[in-house]
């Protein structure tokens, strides 16, 4: 018997299975913490916190906090009342919504009144929604009791350094205790406060995820140490995010480069250890709404919200969540049948999958906005990360442009052995074949697990696979 107990075994299996029961319960429906959950549940951020108390060199403060959002994004600022209304409206329109976070557009804790008022209103009207908060950590320990009282049980702290030297290359100044501190002095205080904040959360039973912005030339060398440190202090997830260039930031002006996908993958692997790394983080827009890469934010603007009436119905939401859980259970069982029980691991291959959610192969190659990359062997499949692409076929784009986009997509997937999608057109199929990438659309609408297992058996191991489905 070679039953696999590794958290990496089993495709998309909840990689949180090694956690104690109580913690797991807190995170299993949380799309940002549980890799599996993020196929089924949605989260949203509300932009109520415009002020910030530090300066990061990769941030252009004209836009949303770069720790939590893609560069260049401007969220529509809401009052706490508007934000609470938006949450209720979204929760009734997208019942998969389980988590609401405040992450900006500045630092939530630099806006304590707006931030906590928003959480209070949501908690009062929709107690079934989980609350989370992202912060640079400067004043986290100061608000720990408030965070506890409001039962905010997930906090994300962005920590980018271990040494003051490195931190001072990232943060030119902070505003603390009514003073502006600069350079090393600022870096020293900020680091101390970040680690104290982390400790305070852990001591109070609040789950902490640490985000680190990976800037190869700046903090690349100390990230493995940082990862070890936050893990030993009790952070339960460490999310290494690539630095993304943003217009007008100090780093952009200085020509600091982002990591290559390869560098990022290597860094994530180096830091993996026993720690659960969040490979599925998409650096979502701070005000994005929806499942997976989807963004329905435009449906819930201030304007549209002011015109609607909301009847919040927690029971209806509960029913829907129960159905989702049944579906998840089915998929979990199917997964156990598909992989496993083999001595021979077989070659490891990377496979790109197009999915719109619910853990199904349900997106076309040409309309996919992102691909989920899995590393597959005979023992199972491990989710690696997403790669964003520009959908090459949307009606309005001219063919020429379409071709360039196709080239770009293929370049991004060039290390994959196969692409599995619900449909792949003739044109990309030809190009992909020339590059030796298998085009597989015969597993359309199966679960991702099953499609990967079947692909692997049929095309990599070249085994006969009986027809008939196990999952989905």
């Amino acid at each position, binding site marked *: 018997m070679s039953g696999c107990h590794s958290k990496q075994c089993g495709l998309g299996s909840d990689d949180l299975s090694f956690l104690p029961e109580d913690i797991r319960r807190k995170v299993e429906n949380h799309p940002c913490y549980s890799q599996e959950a993020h196929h089924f549940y949605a989260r949203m951020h509300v932009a109520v916190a415009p002020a*910030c108390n530090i300066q990061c060199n990769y941030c252009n403060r004209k836009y949303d906090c770069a720790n939590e959002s893609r560069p260049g994004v401007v969220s529509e600022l809401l009052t706490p009342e508007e934000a609470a209304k938006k949450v209720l409206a979204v929760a009734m329109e997208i019942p998969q919504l389980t988590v609401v976070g405040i992450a900006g557009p500045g630092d939530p804790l630099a*806006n304590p009144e707006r931030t906590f008022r928003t959480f209070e209103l949501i908690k009062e009207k929709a107690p079934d929604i989980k609350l989370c908060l992202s912060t640079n950590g400067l004043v986290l320990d100061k608000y720990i009791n408030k965070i506890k009282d409001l039962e905010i049980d997930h906090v994300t702290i962005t920590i980018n350094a271990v040494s003051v030297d490195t931190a001072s290359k990232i943060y030119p100044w902070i505003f603390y205790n*009514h003073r502006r501190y600069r350079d090393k002095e600022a870096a020293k205080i900020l680091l101390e406060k970040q680690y104290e904040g982390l400790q305070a959360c852990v001591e109070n039973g609040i789950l902490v995820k640490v985000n680190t912005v990976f800037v190869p030339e700046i903090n690349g060398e100390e990230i493995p140490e940082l990862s070890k440190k936050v893990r030993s202090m009790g952070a339960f997830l460490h999310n290494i995010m690539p630095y993304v260039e943003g217009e007008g930031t100090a780093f952009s002006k200085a020509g600091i480069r982002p990591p290559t996908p390869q560098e990022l993958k290597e860094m994530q692997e180096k830091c993996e250890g026993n720690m659960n790394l969040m490979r599925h983080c998409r650096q979502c827009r701070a005000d994005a709404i929806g499942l997976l890469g989807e963004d329905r934010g435009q449906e819930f603007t201030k304007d549209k919200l002011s015109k609607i009436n909301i009847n919040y119905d927690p029971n209806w939401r509960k029913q829907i969540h129960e159905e989702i859980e049944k579906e998840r259970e089915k998929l979990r069982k199917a997964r156990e049948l598909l992989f496993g029980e083999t001595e021979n691991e077989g070659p490891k291959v990377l496979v790109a999958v197009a999915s719109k959610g619910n853990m199904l192969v349900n997106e076309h190659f040409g309309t996919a906005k992102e691909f989920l990359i899995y590393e597959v062997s005979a023992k199972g499949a491990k989710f690696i990360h997403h790669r964003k692409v520009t959908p090459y076929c949307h009606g309005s784009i001219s063919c020429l442009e379409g071709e360039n986009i196709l080239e770009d997509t293929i370049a991004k997937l060039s290390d994959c052995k196969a692409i599995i999608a619900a449909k792949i057109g003739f044109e990309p199929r030809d190009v992909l074949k020339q590059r030796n990438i298998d085009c597989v659309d015969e597993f359309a609408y199966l679960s991702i697990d099953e499609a990967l297992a079947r692909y692997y058996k049929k095309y990599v191991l070249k085994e006969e696979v009986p027809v008939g489905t196990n999952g989905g």
Partner: protein
Amino acid sequence: MPYSIKKDLCISCYACEDQCPTKAISHNEEGEFFIDPTVCVECEGFYEEPQCLAICPIDGCIVKLSEVEEV
């Protein structure tokens, strides 16, 4: 000499308004921020540094009123 906000540089982040000990700072519906020169005391008697200046993320956005008037 009180402080003033340069409208064209301000990104409407509220930080200064939140910090001002005399409530000299306010904003209108369009998100434009103003310092009332009759209320601003340069934080004297409150803090060592003008709070608005110390937290404003945009260099040169908050300046002495005289600098604005000269231009």
